[in-house]
């Protein structure tokens, strides 16, 4: 179904955020200039969608999230979440949304994990039966059983993130905002978090908007990705399309038995770097690595290999370079 004809849960129409930045230029002298952190952004997200919101640091990602959650008031445009103007009815919206800031825990450092949940229970006035049901489900899905009695300061980063996600969901929010939910996590924790989010979305149709630097988060979770750069929405669509738009490449790192001349790979794959017995091959992100690997394994004395995903920054940078080129020619 076309998301635009479905129930538009989040609506942004020409939303702007302008900051007055004062910079010290002397002892008392200050220079003022205006920064458009978010520059006329429009999009809608349907109920139950899972959307990746990506872009380089300082592109306007967090500013957008802060406007969506009612922390910041937009300087212009129209913004609605569940029909509510977040900046005007912050507290009413708070009951309907969950927020997880990846690098800032909202859990109580010195108290057992369960105490933070009890506070949520009372602060959000969650009916007792609903609270118990939700808590049981979270404990099961996020594997928190052993951790409930442990003071938060003793939890690992991955455990704490799972704890934070559960805290954000006890009051049945219709929308969940995640700011870098997998940053700094080990592979197992990342997998747990992703599996959980998928299940949450499938079971409760919770709308999820997540910012990330990890393309795998998007690949495994989001059917739709939005790219913001310099405050503007530069891409909105499927992830595959982003790879095409950015002509992004993955890298195959090959360790051979000995130093050899550059591998003769079938184009468009090509060797981009050689360092002793190790060689780096770039190939399109949209292509499968299997054929390339099979061919090299058949023709060269292979010891080890690994595939590196393109990072978002590189994809976007490339996308921009392409646009600029096209504009010139």
């Amino acid at each position, binding site marked *: 179904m076309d998301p635009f004809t479905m129930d538009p849960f989040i609506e942004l129409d020409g939303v702007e*955020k302008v*900051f*007055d930045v004062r910079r010290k230029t002397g002892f008392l002298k200050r220079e003022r200039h205006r920064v458009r952190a978010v520059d006329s952004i429009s999009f809608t997200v349907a109920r139950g969608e899972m959307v990746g919101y990506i872009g380089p640091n300082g592109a306007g990602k967090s*500013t957008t999230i*802060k406007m969506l*959650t*009612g*922390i*910041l*008031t937009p*300087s212009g445009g129209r913004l609605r979440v569940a029909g509510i103007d977040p*900046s005007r009815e*912050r*507290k*009413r919206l*708070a*009951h309907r*949304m969950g*927020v997880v*800031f990846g690098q*800032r825990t*909202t859990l*109580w*450092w*010195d*108290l057992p994990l369960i*105490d933070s949940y009890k*506070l949520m229970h*009372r*602060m*959000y006035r969650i009916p007792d039966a609903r609270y118990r049901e939700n808590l049981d489900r979270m404990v099961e899905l996020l594997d928190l059983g052993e951790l409930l009695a442990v*003071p938060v300061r003793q939890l690992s980063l991955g455990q704490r993130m799972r704890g934070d996600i559960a805290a954000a969901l006890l009051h049945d929010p219709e929308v969940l905002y995640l700011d870098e939910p997998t940053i700094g996590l080990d592979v197992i924790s990342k997998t747990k978090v992703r599996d959980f989010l998928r299940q949450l979305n499938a079971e409760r149709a919770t709308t999820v908007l997540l910012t990330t630097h990890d393309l795998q988060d998007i690949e495994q979770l989001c059917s739709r990705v939005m790219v913001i750069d310099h405050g503007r929405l530069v891409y909105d669509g499927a992830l595959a399309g982003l790879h095409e738009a950015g002509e992004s490449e993955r890298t195959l790192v090959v360790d051979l038995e000995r130093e050899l001349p550059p591998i003769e790979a079938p184009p468009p794959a090509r060797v981009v770097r050689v360092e002793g017995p190790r060689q780096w091959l770039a190939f399109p992100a949209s292509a499968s690595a299997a054929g390339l690997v099979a061919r090299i394994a058949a023709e060269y004395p292979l010891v080890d290999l690994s595939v590196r995903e393109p990072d978002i920054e590189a994809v976007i940078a490339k996308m921009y370079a392409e646009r600029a080129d096209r504009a010139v020619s």
Partner: protein
Amino acid sequence: MGERSVVAEGLRAYWLIAGMWVRAGMTYRASFVATMVGNLVMTGMDFVGILLMFSQVDSLGGWSLPEVALLYGLSVTSFGIADLVLGSMDVLGARMRDGSFDTLLVRPAPVLAQVGADRFAVRRLGRVVQGTVVLGWALASVDVDWSVPKVLLVPVMVLSGAAIFSAVFVAGAAFQIFAQDAAEVQNAFTYGGTTLLQYPPSVFGKDLVRGATFVLPLAFVNWVPAAYLLGRPYPIGLPSWAAFVSPLVAVVCCALAGLAWRTGLRSYRSTGS
């Protein structure tokens, strides 16, 4: 939501969060006991300083020891109550710098209540206890012809004083929104204010007394009503009914502080800093 339910919501949120801090504080029992004792000793030493001074002189600015003790007891008790309730508002600037202030804005509770309850610590009760003890001794020792209005004036002074100091805490927090490293400015008015009020107004210059009466009306915490109670002239001429306007001054201060807080919060939400 009406104003009334905002207040109820705020008190409820304050109660919930303060309770969490109390429990968090209890997890370090030894440290809790040590800081509690340390706090009592430190605030106690404060009054010892005044006692030492009176071992050398008979009066301070014309005020006897019990009279100065009355000022001290009133100032410390009302400041202690405000400090117990809102004393951690000076961490607001730090919360803004590290970004954790944003996490308070996504909760369904008034932000002021959340900031007020931040780092709530029972050990701050020490100051209230110490102030009350000194106040009790002073009330028993001063030479006052007690009447009903004079007796009633005592609790009115303590409560109005606590409200005036609370307003200073809130206004200071609002100021920190604009100047995030200004916790010390706030401390100058709160801790500085309570120290100022521990001495008779007659030892200060008239301009300072005028400032503390009409600009930042700390004088209504104890100076003005206590001068009336003790039958002493106030350094700058005030009518005798001025001794009874402390509650009114407190209400006005709280309203202005609330306004400043709202303005500050609105500014934060539009500038993000």
